[in-house]
């Protein structure tokens, strides 16, 4: 598959991660990210690590950076709350950090239990000093993730890309 001809935004994210030399990818199981995770698992240049809880991803990212590698944490908005305490590490160590977050409790969500953390996600990330990029159109995904990666790894920032539920789709959950 040629990178220039990829139409699906999830495939485009994988291309952007490769272009930015991301070598470690951390994730929890996630329907929204599943196709991207499988791309990463099949890649020879990326080490893919399943986590038991999202906060492990912050510690792993810090360790990777200490060792000279770039990483990305893939999670759902429902896991963002788990990361908040350790998110402080991005400030105290001042290391580049990139996370791609699939949103729940956001756009036509059917599950009321997803709303509190989904609606709180931008606020708590901002409270911890994380830069927010938000995308709800498939055509904007590639450029947004690319800009976020530049802000993180060139600009030294902690950056989160919110992949809005409007983009991911309400009916497609559980399907690839």
């Amino acid at each position, binding site marked *: 598959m040629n990178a220039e001809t990829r139409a699906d935004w999830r495939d485009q994210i994988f291309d952007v991660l490769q272009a930015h030399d991301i070598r470690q990818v951390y994730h929890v199981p996630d329907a929204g990210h599943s196709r991207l995770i499988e791309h990463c698992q099949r890649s020879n240049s990326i*080490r893919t690590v399943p*986590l038991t809880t999202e906060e492990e991803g912050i510690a792993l*990212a810090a360790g990777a950076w200490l060792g000279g*590698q770039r990483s990305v944490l893939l999670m759902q908005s429902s896991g963002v709350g788990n990361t908040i305490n350790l998110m402080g590490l991005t400030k105290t160590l001042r290391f580049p950090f990139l996370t791609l977050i699939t949103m729940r409790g956001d756009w036509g969500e059917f599950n009321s239990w997803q709303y509190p953390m989904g609606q709180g996600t931008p606020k708590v990330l901002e409270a911890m000093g994380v830069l927010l990029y938000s995308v709800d159109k498939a055509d904007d995904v590639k450029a947004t993730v690319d800009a976020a990666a530049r802000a993180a790894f060139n600009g030294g920032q902690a950056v989160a890309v919110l992949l809005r539920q409007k983009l991911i789709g309400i009916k497609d959950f559980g399907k690839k």
Partner: protein
Amino acid sequence: MNKATLQRRPLVKKILEGANENLLVIAGLGSSNWDITEAGDRPLNMPLWGAMGAPVGMGLGLAMAQPAKRVLVITGDGDMLMSLGSLATVATQQLENLAIVVLDNEKFGETGNQATHTSPRNNGPTDSGAGTDLALIAKGCGIADASVVRDAGEVPQLVNDVRFKKGPVFRVVKVMVEKLEFVMPPQDGAHLKDRFRQALLGHP
């Protein structure tokens, strides 16, 4: 009730003896931080002043990035209890260059020596734990080489295992409760990170 006879400071000094550019050390907040610093502050030490629960994950990320170096995580029982799941995550990668040492005094030292879950059960109204066996947990998570060290006679083997044996290696060392002097490394996290990367990679 803590019947441990090993003292953490001389033990850590032995573990880190002859540390060179091939040994990357991460220490958990509090006592473990002061321990590795008393053994000799060095750029390839990453002593944490906070981030409880992070050392094992940090060691894993570092060990994946630097497969030719030995990565040694030294932390306490309280810190390890906060991130038990990370042992399962470590087990998914089976890295040969990663070793974890838990200095288990069965106390939360930084907050006034309250009993941790590794303290025995039925140990009085304020000092009872659950008798939690961290080595058994590590083994159950999938780290096959996990054990507990209690006696001075086992220390030379312990030192060799955590420095050189094919990982992942997980050791719980039962240590005494002691009141020790704080020996502090630099506190600024960005400085600690930059000096580590400078020494390892040649740039911050």
